[in-house]
């Protein structure tokens, strides 16, 4: 059978896109449309579920099935959908406010349950749709409409939270680094279990340049470090710096002083999340921030698989469900006419 070969354009819906000109969301949308045809999953088997926020308008722009739901709850809709329809490819699109404040609870639980879905978290460290209040990932001291004297909240690190919840796939990418983003989305799609991809995404209206240290090509090589499984952690414009583990800490070292073999080697497959957690603690400006796949653990049963396995096991054990037998079970009595 010849299946039609789909192109990025086939995944575009007929709706006008209403993000601000220059928004990083366009880039993520473009990469998604580019990646999906390569997965070989029919459009009708693909569902995008989102919460509320700029990013959450995403499903309207995809020619797949989609649900734009309510604040922070996209993971819960995805849970009901995927649990009953494991045949579907389900993507959750969310933002830093949606996933981490109003939806913080569901974010943790979908990760620890390991539902086989993909979560893409657009992180611009600001509330865009509500016009510029600070978000759970905003820097301490950030002046916004709701924090004229500076934010006094300590920011939440989504990847640390995810790894603490023992998420089986955790990655970070950048809207501006399109190749890396496409590759990371593809890796996420290939993972069985909940995959989380945090995408640093610029809000050029309310928080322009917040992640410029990572986004700008000129600064990226100094301020980020690309994780590769089995490889030592090396970074810098001249690839002359590395990361070494000392006790429970990570430190930046100069390759002039330290041999490559003494650097930390990345193991994304490690079941124990401790090192992945340490990597998630690397924050600019003290450390380069890792991008790429932190963690990709295989062989952990997924929620949807298990709920359906239990149904199958119960059917195998009890045979074809028989309502008559159920209704007449236990103590009954007859009333004669």
């Amino acid at each position, binding site marked *: 059978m010849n299946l039609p070969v789909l192109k990025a354009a086939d995944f575009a819906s007929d709706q006008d896109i209403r993000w601000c000109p220059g928004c990083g969301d366009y880039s993520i949308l473009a990469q998604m449309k580019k990646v999906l045809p390569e997965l070989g999953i029919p459009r009708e088997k693909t*569902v995008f579920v989102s919460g509320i926020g700029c990013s959450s308008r995403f499903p309207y722009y995809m020619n797949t*099935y989609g*649900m*734009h739901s309510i604040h922070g709850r996209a993971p819960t809709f995805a849970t*009901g959908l995927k*649990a009953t329809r494991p045949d579907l490819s389900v993507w959750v699109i969310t933002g830093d406010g949606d996933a981490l404040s109003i939806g913080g609870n569901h974010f943790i639980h979908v990760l620890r349950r390991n539902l086989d879905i993909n979560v893409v978290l657009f992180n611009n460290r600001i509330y865009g749709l509500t016009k510029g209040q600070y978000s759970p990932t905003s820097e301490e001291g950030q002046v916004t409409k709701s924090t004229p004297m500076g934010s006094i909240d300590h920011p939440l690190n989504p990847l640390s939270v995810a790894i603490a919840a023992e998420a089986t796939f955790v990655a970070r990418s950048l809207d501006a680094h399109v190749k890396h983003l496409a590759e990371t989305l593809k890796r996420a799609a290939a993972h069985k279990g909940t995959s989380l991809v945090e995408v640093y995404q610029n809000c050029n209206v309310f928080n322009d340049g917040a992640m410029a240290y990572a986004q700008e090509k000129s600064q990226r090589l100094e301020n980020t470090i690309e994780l590769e499984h089995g490889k030592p952690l090396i970074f810098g414009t001249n690839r002359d710096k590395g990361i070494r583990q000392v006790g429970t800490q990570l430190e930046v070292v100069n390759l002039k002083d330290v041999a490559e073999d003494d650097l930390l080697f990345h193991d994304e497959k490690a079941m124990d999340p401790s090192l992945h957690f340490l990597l998630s603690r690397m924050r600019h400006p003290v450390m380069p921030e890792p991008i790429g796949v932190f963690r990709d653990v295989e062989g952990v049963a997924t929620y949807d698989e298990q709920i359906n396995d239990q149904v199958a096991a119960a059917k195998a054990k009890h045979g074809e469900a028989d309502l008559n037998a159920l209704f007449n079970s236990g*103590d009954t*009595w007859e009333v004669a006419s």
Partner: protein
Amino acid sequence: MSVQPEGQLIADKEISEVDGITVRLAGDSGDGMQLLGTQLTNTSALLGNDVATFPDFPAEIRAPRGTRAGVSGFQVQFANSEIFTPGDTLDALVVMNPAAMVTNITDLRRGGLLIVNEDGFDAKALKLAALTEDPVTEEIEDRYRVFKVPMTKLTRDAVKELGLGMKEADRCKNFFAMGLVYWLFGRSLEPTLRFIDNKFGKKLPDVAAANEKALRAGWAFGETTETFGITYRVAPAKLKPGTYKNMMGNQALAWGLLAAAKRSGKEVFYSGYPITPASDILHELSRYKHFGTRTFQAEDEISACCAAIGAAFGGAMAVTASSGPGIALKAEAMGLGFILELPLIVINVQRGGPSTGLPTKTEQSDLLQAMFNRNGEAPLPIIAAQSPGDCFDAAQEAWRIAVKFMTPVILLSDGYIANGSEPWKVPDVNEMEPIVVTHPPDAAEGDAPFMPYARDENLARPWAIPGTAGLMHRVGGLEKADGSGNVSYDPDNHQLMTDKRAAKIEGIANDIPAQEVFGEESGDVLVISWGGTYGACHTAIERCQREGLSVSHAHIRYMNPMPANLGDLMRSFRKVLVPELNSGQLRMLLRAKYLVDCIGFNKVKGKPFSVSELMDQIHEIADQPTPNDQHFG
């Protein structure tokens, strides 16, 4: 309906035939009173009596032992005719300790049997019950027929040879009490012996043996001592022919969902967050995975409702349940379900509110919550179950409406119905009509664009599910353009869609039966009730009718939309009385909708109505002149 003590106690045991008996068993919440009550109920049902039960227990798992706060009770009425309530006043009260006695004694009718576990009335127990002296006073002995039985001691003696520890031995005393009660009312021990064997026989043979001995000892005590001079018999009730089983409300609800799934060719996805008194629906459905039932214990109420909507989007029979405070949390998702126009059942097993309120007590004060607890114009159909067995039918009716009209449906139950029980006539599954569900099929290249918000003759939109080629569409909480379902901020479209959604829900009135009336279709007083007060209202009205009063009964099942003939019906009576276990919620709706000045009879005590208080109220209303007589000419 009551035990008639004939004269003094007599030496030879006499058997008294009575129409019915109401008995309450009360003890500490660790004493096994619920188990005792359930067994007595099942046994009575198997004898062919009509039964109705009312469990009443504290909200704490183990309130301090022996205190008034820790008293757990179970009331059952068994009768030789059809009954609709667990009874008003008690014919017999069994109490295991002083706290149980003082908190229950006022419900025992004068001359009723008071059976006291004498061993439970020591100084320590009196102190725990905050009493300075033995509550079994001379006055009590004059007023009731009191039997003091040293149940703890007799139980210990009965199980002595098994070598159990004191604590284990004492734990069997509820079975001793059970045996005595069974003897007194001529119940067979067989079903309970079978229960003991099933529950403990294999795993804990010692416990099984001890319980059996205690049960038999209780029976033997009644038979051999001179304490009791009379026993009572209640003949089988004349119910409709068929197979029956004793059924609790939450179980009937779960089974109704399974039946609805079968009728519609679906499998149930049920999501819930633990809450009293709804949790048992989750427990029950979790046992039926072989029916394809998937149950999801969510991280919170919001998640539970949203997960159900996700499952509905995927084509499952989606159900979520909670009690009032949990429903409050689900509200935003219910609004989304409404605008998505997806079928969903949201069950509210009401309890005393507001907020955490009275978790184990009954109330019907969430009607206005069901009507209005959503932002914007978001009417939802509401169905109220009226009795434990009726939950089975109500659940199926909720699903029928949900899929026919593509809308979430609210199903109201309450703690009284959920934990109460009654005989349930086992239906013939082969006679169940199908509930028709259609999903539009794959579309081909070149077909007209799919319109997810096109409407059929019921104004329902198509239930197109992911996986269907060519029907890709996006749903969401933003206003939909008519037909295409695209996001639309157009003012006229919002008006149109608001009107269409409202008309769809209002149109359900044409799809439900006309309001039935028990009694004449016009007259002096129309009593309008809903939900779990059905039994008490029906009984009260039936008795008032027998007394010659011109009173009729309309018990509403469809709370929204209401039956089309209800307004005319109300105007055919001089007065309309609306008894409710709230401060007048249905009355407010009736007045607003039909401009008829209903009279309320309201109670918010965490307790159901008694038949007698309703009868008093009906008498009072019937005797009063009507303030608006001129409207009736």
